[in-house]
């Protein structure tokens, strides 16, 4: 009999660590026996802020990683307003109520790549592009893809000090040519000076890819969608929208698509770029 796998659950998760990684960028580490083992790359958890009476909306955070035998969740979040300021001030011992795993994650490309797009190692080549905090949604995916693909991972941040992702991915960088990091910053303080979209355009010119995934600011995603279209490349994007329920009931996070309105919280956050209306 097939094991019963729930789609999503509510769980009170013990806060293990809440650490500042860079200005306004924090990492939450939570013990989660029920939600963590269910998480697929690209999914998110909906975090209830203690004192929900005053701050009634949950905050959606994408899962950066699942650790320690699948019982710990790592969430990277940006401190942008009152809610995330409040979360930033939380310290153990405390539990946070999580709803998750929410939404549909990345739909991985077919394992067998076409001949013309195989990389140096004879495996299909994929392109990941992360802008700022959006990179967090791609991190688990990058490591999962390593099993069958050659991965080019473009990561852009505003400044060097915000490039928190590089160190975590460093152990895989360059090993057997499986993962190559392409770093850029807006001010040139680390890696290339410039935008992720410039780097992605160059890579697309130089290499044949079988698949592309991106997460970041909407103008970046729109530009990448246009690029991918010119190469006829299958492209998935992870979208962000204000949401209340995370369940598909409130319709706060509706996005217009070619197929009518879709909800970021249940139909996404990952969409085929071609499904979305970018205007």
């Amino acid at each position: 009999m097939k094991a019963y796998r729930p789609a999503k659950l509510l769980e009170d998760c013990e806060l293990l660590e809440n650490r500042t990684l860079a200005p306004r960028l924090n990492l939450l580490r939570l013990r989660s026996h029920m939600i963590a083992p269910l998480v697929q790359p690209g999914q998110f958890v909906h975090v209830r802020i203690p004192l929900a009476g005053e701050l009634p909306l949950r905050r959606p955070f994408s899962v950066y990683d699942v650790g320690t035998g699948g019982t710990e969740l790592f969430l990277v979040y940006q401190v942008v307003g009152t809610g995330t300021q409040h979360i930033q001030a939380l310290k153990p011992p405390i539990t946070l109520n999580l709803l998750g795993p929410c939404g549909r994650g990345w739909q991985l490309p077919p394992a067998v790549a076409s001949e013309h797009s195989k990389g140096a190692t004879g495996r299909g080549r994929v392109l990941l592009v992360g802008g700022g905090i959006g990179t967090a949604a791609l991190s688990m995916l990058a490591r999962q893809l390593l099993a069958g693909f050659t991965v080019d991972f473009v990561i852009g941040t505003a400044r060097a000090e915000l490039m928190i992702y590089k160190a975590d991915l460093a152990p895989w960088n360059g090993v057997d040519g499986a993962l190559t990091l392409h770093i850029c910053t807006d001010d040139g303080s680390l890696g290339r000076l410039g935008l992720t979209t410039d780097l992605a355009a160059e890579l697309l010119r130089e290499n044949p890819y079988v698949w592309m995934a991106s997460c970041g600011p909407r103008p970046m995603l729109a530009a990448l969608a246009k690029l991918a279209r010119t190469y006829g490349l299958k492209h998935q994007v992870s979208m962000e929208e204000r949401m209340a329920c995370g369940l598909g009931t409130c319709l706060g996070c509706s996005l217009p698509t070619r197929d009518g309105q879709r909800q970021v919280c249940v139909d996404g956050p990952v969409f085929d770029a071609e499904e979305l209306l970018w205007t």
Partner: protein
Amino acid sequence: MSPQADVRAPSHAEIAECTEAVCHDRQRAPSHVEMAVEIAGIKMANPVTVASGTFASGREMAKLWQECARAQPNLVSISRFPALNCLGALTTKAITLKPWAGNPAPRLAETASGLLNSIGLENPGVEVFCERDLPWLARQNLPLIVNVGGHSLEEYAQVIEHLERASADIMDGQEGPDVAVPAAYELNISCPNVDAGGMAFGVDALLAAELTRRCRRLTRRPLIVKLSPNVTDITTIAQAVQEAGADALSLVNTLTGMAIDAIRRRPLLGRGFGGLSGSAIKPVALYLVHQCYRAVDIPIIGMGGIATGIDAVEFLLAGACAVAVGSASFSDPLASVRVIQGLEDYCVQHGIAAVRELTGSLQSH
């Protein structure tokens, strides 16, 4: 006050209280409190329903509750209430004649203890609702209240006509759902998020009465009219729809409001303004329920910021016969279940034999 001063970690007592609420003893002894109420002929197992638009058609919540119950037999409450029919009634999101796409993003903004929304009644239209949701809802064995919206008198009427036909088909084709489907209609004449219709009907006593009369002729089911708080005197509208044949009132819909991003100098909502809900509006809602309770004879379903059993008690004391849990379900998908339990606990603690005794039993100073 420094910016950090209001960012306070919860105390251990608060954490303990929260955990206790979640891990409520599933072996609760059955109480002898009579929780059932009857509103305009709708027989509810308890006085708690959900506010339109916060629960969709119930499928998502029902699935989550079931999955939580299976995965965590010790969590809750849900093992005692495994299904949707732990609710006194289910109230759907507004259904309109044609599919509505709703308003541009962002549609949500959090305000102090409140939620501002400008969803705009996005829904797939009555045809899809009848095909996809109604047969499923008919099997859930609880009273169903279908919320009806529209741009014009004619649209409201056509939605009801469509639902009447669909209901007849379901009742014919199925071996008897225990409860008539739908059990009642709730006329949404109070949504601030649509341009034509919606709240326009709810802020004018003559129009509200005309719409009520028109719909009254189309159905024998109870008609609940959901009123807007955005009026000078809600009692004149309440009296007008009562005279026009309304069987009950839902009070209140959201308060029109606005939130502004001072840095970007723009409204936070794509539409510019929206409807405020959540505990921020509870005092306003309580007052309006109390006003209407004294002005009309038909029963009132109270709503606006209900998140706990005590909140529900307050609405009953103010004059409501039943209550609806709204945006609290977004923060806690089990909020409605907890309200039912909290209400029952209150009755036990205060020696109330039947919950209906609470209605209007507010004492004066």
